[in-house]
């Protein structure tokens, strides 16, 4: 076989890369088209083209200078960041208890937490609305932080509990012998080892809060308290029949940028094998 042209191998490689190209194009194209559209103005918008042939910042200027969009962006940043911090704090402490402290009803509690996340948003919308009204936080950022935290926690708690359960028990015991309190164990021993899990769940919680629409629409009523997804949906053109596609696309691109930046910052933190070397193996 030496020196012969291996047709099968070439075919396999070709098919593999064709598949890769197909998957990449299929998943990236919608975003590419959104970016493309956001730089078009006027009637260009309705001319289908796949290459950037016209270029203008007009839509971006329009979105950022009109209405309350910058305010909405700040709302989104504040709400998402607070939700992530709150959810991670609660989830870390909860998962420590759920994975390391033996108490009656622990299994039941874990299952309940999972069950809570099975309800669709719409099912709890009315009840949650009443709760938020009675707490007096309707139409404030806290309404959204409150409801997002509720929906983020089950997932976060589950992931962190599973992760913490896999941390070697001897490391915790060594810390206990060294005189560490549970809080010291969590913050100085476990958290540095849990970076990958914290970053992953934190990022997912952020994206979830950032893109959420239904609660944001229901629990806010004024332009100044809305978050970006709702603001984009409510962007209106010159008349009720005109949909401002250019502005919507520009706003969408602006909204996506923080997520991309976050992922780029944190992806280098997501390194595996952080626990290597602590215990045998």
């Amino acid at each position, binding site marked *: 076989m030496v020196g012969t042209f291996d047709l099968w191998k070439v075919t396999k490689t070709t098919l593999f890369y064709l598949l890769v190209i197909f998957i990449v194009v299929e998943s990236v194209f919608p975003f590419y088209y959104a970016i493309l559209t956001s730089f078009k103005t006027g009637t260009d918008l309705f001319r289908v083209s796949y290459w950037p042939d016209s270029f203008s910042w007009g839509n971006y200027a329009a979105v950022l200078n009109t209405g309350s969009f910058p305010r909405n962006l700040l709302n989104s940043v504040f709400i998402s960041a607070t939700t992530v911090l709150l959810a991670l704090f609660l989830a870390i402490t909860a998962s420590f208890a759920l994975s390391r402290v033996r108490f009656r009803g622990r299994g039941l509690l874990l299952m309940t937490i999972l069950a809570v996340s099975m309800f669709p948003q719409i099912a709890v919308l009315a009840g949650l609305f009443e709760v938020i009204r009675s707490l007096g936080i309707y139409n404030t950022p806290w309404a959204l932080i409150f409801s997002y935290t509720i929906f983020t926690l089950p997932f976060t708690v589950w992931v962190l509990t599973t992760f913490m359960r896999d941390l070697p028990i001897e490391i915790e015991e060594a810390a206990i012998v*060294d*005189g560490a309190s549970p809080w010291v164990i969590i913050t100085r021993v476990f958290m540095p080892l849990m970076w990958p899990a914290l970053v992953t769940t934190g990022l997912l919680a952020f994206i979830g809060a950032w893109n959420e629409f239904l609660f944001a629409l229901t629990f806010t009523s004024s332009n100044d308290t809305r978050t970006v997804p709702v603001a984009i949906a409510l962007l209106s053109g010159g008349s009720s029949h005109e949909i401002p596609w250019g502005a919507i696309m520009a706003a969408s691109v602006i909204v996506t940028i923080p997520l991309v930046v976050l992922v780029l910052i944190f992806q280098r933190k997501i390194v595996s094998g952080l626990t290597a070397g602590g*215990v045998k193996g």
Partner: protein
Amino acid sequence: MANIQLRNVRKAFGAVEVIKGIDLNIRSGEFMVFVGPSGCGKSTLLRLVAGLEDITSGELAFDGKVVNGLAPSKRGIAMVFQSYALYPHMTVFDNMAFGLTLEKGTDKDEIRKRVENAAELLQITPYLARLPKQLSGGQRQRVAIGRAIVRDPKVFLFDEPLSNLDAALRVATRIEIAKLHESMHNVTMIYVTHDQVEAMTLADRICVLRDGLVEQVGTPMELYETPDSLFVAGFIGSPKMNFIAGDKAKPFGAHTVGVRGEHLVIKPSDGTWSGTVIHTENLGADSYVYLEMGTEEPVVVRLDGVNNYKSGDVVHISPMDDKIHRFDAAGKPIR
């Protein structure tokens, strides 16, 4: 300096009782080894002394003071774990200093000095800036021992510290632990192992545990020469003591006769017993001859130097008169 007393200590996990009432007095500065087969409760007993498990009933006292409810860090103990249990994200220095940094009022220079002294003692000074994952197994275990030394404990606890090391390193580390005990003569050490060789070579006294109860406590030679039960006789010593029961033991007035391989002599004829050689092992300095003679397990004879017996040979053996252990039907010695 700490004298440790256990008074009727029991530990149950739910309905399962693991430690079934242990009375033991560990003298100050002593090297005590807990040994026994797996599942005998020796690690649990160590964890009770450490405070990592709560004592179900009974009393544990350090120097006469009951410490049942005291947190591990308040008992003046340090522990070395089987799996090293180093903090993976901290350097060797930080691993060793962690306990001290948690104590209020210890200043940085003092911590540095103590860590450096311990590192010097264990010859790990060149690795102080490294992470655990950059060390070999033996080095990691030395760091774990160093972390324990730095805390300047009254009681040093070892939970099978050599089990994860390879054979050569195990012997080397064993010697280091023995030297450590000599240099820290006022520190009480408790060492858990299932390996009776470690127990024999390290211990001042050995505590043999079986099913959550103390089987016998004594110096290695006491256990070797005067075992208090069939179990201890069979557990201590390598190769295992030969047990000859039934009719062959009757002339000795015992239910079971125990003779160690090194206390059997091969005779040209007219031995006490005779058997067929089924296997021989030559180790150079000594050699083992395995005989089939109707006992539960083959009888082992230990000979000096190399032997020339072959499978199928019939040999006669006699025990040395003063080295015979006689046991009654309950497994208790007849003396």
